[in-house]
């Protein structure tokens, strides 16, 4: 049985690496993408249990990518995050995903709790780092 897979999308390499390590340590299979375009390509190619994506990115921004992902896989839960607390994109993101947009710096406990709620009993599965 495989661990639940999470696609982590951010143009900030530090963010992808640190959050990826935390998620991996928490027994998620972590895939990463550094742009909206790459994220859409990954979703088209593979199946993920959840997507964690930044809003502000060069090229295709988070919300545009979100729309593309939702059209490819309507059932996939997407959690959006941003460093900009008053972005006009926040409202749209929130509406599309149905979840609150998380502010950076992230409250990791909250991220993990949210993921746990979306993907049932990940901790029951054996540990494995992707």
């Amino acid at each position, binding site marked *: 049985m495989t661990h639940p897979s999470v696609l982590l999308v951010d143009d900030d390499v530090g*963010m992808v690496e*640190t959050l990826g390590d*935390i998620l991996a340590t928490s027994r998620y299979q972590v895939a990463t993408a550094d742009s909206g375009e790459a994220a859409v390509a990954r979703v088209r190619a593979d199946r993920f249990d959840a997507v964690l994506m930044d809003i502000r990115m060069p090229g295709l921004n988070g919300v545009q990518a979100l729309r593309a992902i939702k059209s490819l896989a309507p059932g996939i839960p997407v959690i959006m995050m941003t460093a900009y607390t008053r972005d006009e994109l926040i409202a749209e993101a929130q509406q599309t995903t149905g979840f609150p947009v998380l502010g950076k*710096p992230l409250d*990791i406990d909250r991220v993990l709790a949210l993921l746990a709620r979306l993907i049932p009993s990940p901790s029951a599965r054996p540990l494995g780092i992707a």
Partner: protein
Amino acid sequence: MAGAPDLPSGKTGHGTQWAIVGVLVGLFVILLVAGYFFNQVLRLEEAQSLAESEAIARGVAAFIQAREENYVNSLLAYAGRFRFREAVERKNRAEALVHLRQFRDLFSEMDSTFLADPGGVLWARFPETPGLYGRSFADRDWHRGVSREWRPYVSEVFVSAGSGVPVVALAVPIRDLKGKVIGIIGSSQRLDVIRQWLLPIKVPGGDLYLVDRKGQFVFHPTRTGPGHLSDYARVPIVGRLLRGEEGVLEQENPVEHDVRLAAYRPLPSLGWGLVVQRNKNLALQRMHTLILGSGTVGLVLTIALTFLGVVAIRSQRRVVVALDERNRSTEELRRANDRYRERLRILREIDQAILAEEAPVAIGEAAVRGLRDLLGVPRAIVNLFDLASGEAEWLAAAGRRRVHLGPGVRFPLTLMGDVEALRRGEPQVIDVTSLPRGPEAEALLASGVHAYMAVPMIAGGELIGALSFGGAHAEFPPEHISITREVADQMAIALSQARLYERVKREAEELEQRVRERTAQLEAAQDELVRAERLAILGQLAGGMSHELRNPLGVIKNSVYYLRMVLPEEERVRKHLGILDREVETATRIISGLLDFARVTPPSRVEVDLNALVRDQLERMPQPCSITVVLELASDLPPVLADPEQIRLVLSNLISNANQAMPNGGTLTIQTVHAAAGVTLTVADTGLGIAPEHLERIFEPLFTTKAKGIGLGLPLAKRLVESNQGKIRVESTPGQGTCFELRFAGV
């Protein structure tokens, strides 16, 4: 006869002859004696006539000179006036005309008053004659005369270009403050006016005339009009006058065949000459010749001559007496003349003081002082009328010894007599004993004033006040009244001018004050704009930077979290991870503060329950256990109209400030009160407090006393409270704590 006893007694024929010879010799002696006496009579008569002529000439000359000098001095006083000089310097014709009109009003006998530049080009004249403006009068005698040494000059007779009648002109240079000549003020005097005041002077048995420096008649009893302009320089006596000589001359009139004795006298300051001439008694002179010529007149004639001799002796006595009389009257004339000159001098002083002073009180004091001295009265007062209130007020008063400051003494207008009559220009005599008994009347009687006279001051047809003077008796000589009238007229003009000047000055000051206030307002607005601009730039910078910093902070925070997950439970490592976590939190909070400050948006105001907001915010900000939280929330608190998120931000700032002010614990008290003017919310701590010198600056952006923090929390709170129509106030005692008070209007 000593030799008579020696004569032979029989020689009677000789005796008769001797007797006849004796009688003839006696007759001859008698004739000689009579002739001598008669001669004496004639000489006395002549001397008397001459002395009289000279005395008249002296008196008349002094009179004319004093009068003309008064005009010249008045012109000089005008030329020295500051505002007038300014008008001349700027060639401001409108303003200069006001002064010229005023001068003409003072001396209405003047034909015209005019202004020319130093080159003699006319640029203002009253009565107005625009046709003459710009015309050069450089070749006129008045211009040549005044410009020779730049001294006052009285011109020769000429026909006025403006009015076409013979006039003389008085011209006076106008100098600026450095003494440079900037123009000429002149005034032309009609000869028929001079004639009017010289004609009444009667010379017994003769007449008088005046010539100018060219030998033209300034005044002649029979020659008028064009007759003035003939040249009489060839007449011997005029010739002597033109040479500046003084004396008496006997001259024969070829037409009337009589001889005249003329006293002539130059008036050097005017360039005029005066001649007083009288008929010599020719009949007596002829008889004198006849008697001296006939050595052989008979006894009858001798007796007649003897008789005449007796008559002559008597007449001589009479003549001596008459001469004494004349000498006495000459002396009296001289004294009267001295008195007149003294009067003119004081009047001139008053004039000059009135013209020179600018403050009404100073003008008034100059006038009353002069008037008191001139009239020799115990008191003289300038009273100003307030016709609307029916009151009068002293502007200045001169008593026997000193000049009082006038303003302040007020009294009913009825004390000035019949106001309607005053308005018509009629002086009023007021008998103090007939006044109704009152403090004013008592005070007057106590100071020895039993009657006084009020002479109206009328400016521009308006009755503005009265000059009053009084004493122990109700007798006011016509001379005093005419002098007082003259001073009153001058005062009226000067006062109305001074009032106008003061009004203009006051308005200018008010304007200046308004400009100063407006400038201060503009400067304050400018400062505010500059500050707002600076804050806006700071906000943009801070906003942009904060976002960029949030990402790396987020990464650090993630790393710490990861390390805590994977590192063994070693205490020192835990501690450092804790430090990292806390510092990241602090940095994040600072950045959030910056972002908040940079992004104050217009409030979206709704009805807010402050009590609920306070509870909610305290829940979000758990306080350390060293701090006791006391809530005193009013149960009847009405809602306020405000943006809840912004007020929450304010609360969060104030609570976190209170928190930081109590590092060793204390009490945080939050209170809401339903006040008359709305709602009050206070956040009080028992912390370190704020030093008084810092207290007024804590709402300034970037002012901070904390080691950590950039000083935006309180300025943000103030901005937010004020943009929600509220007020924020602070009180603090160092060592005891700080209390912030917010006020909002109720809904």
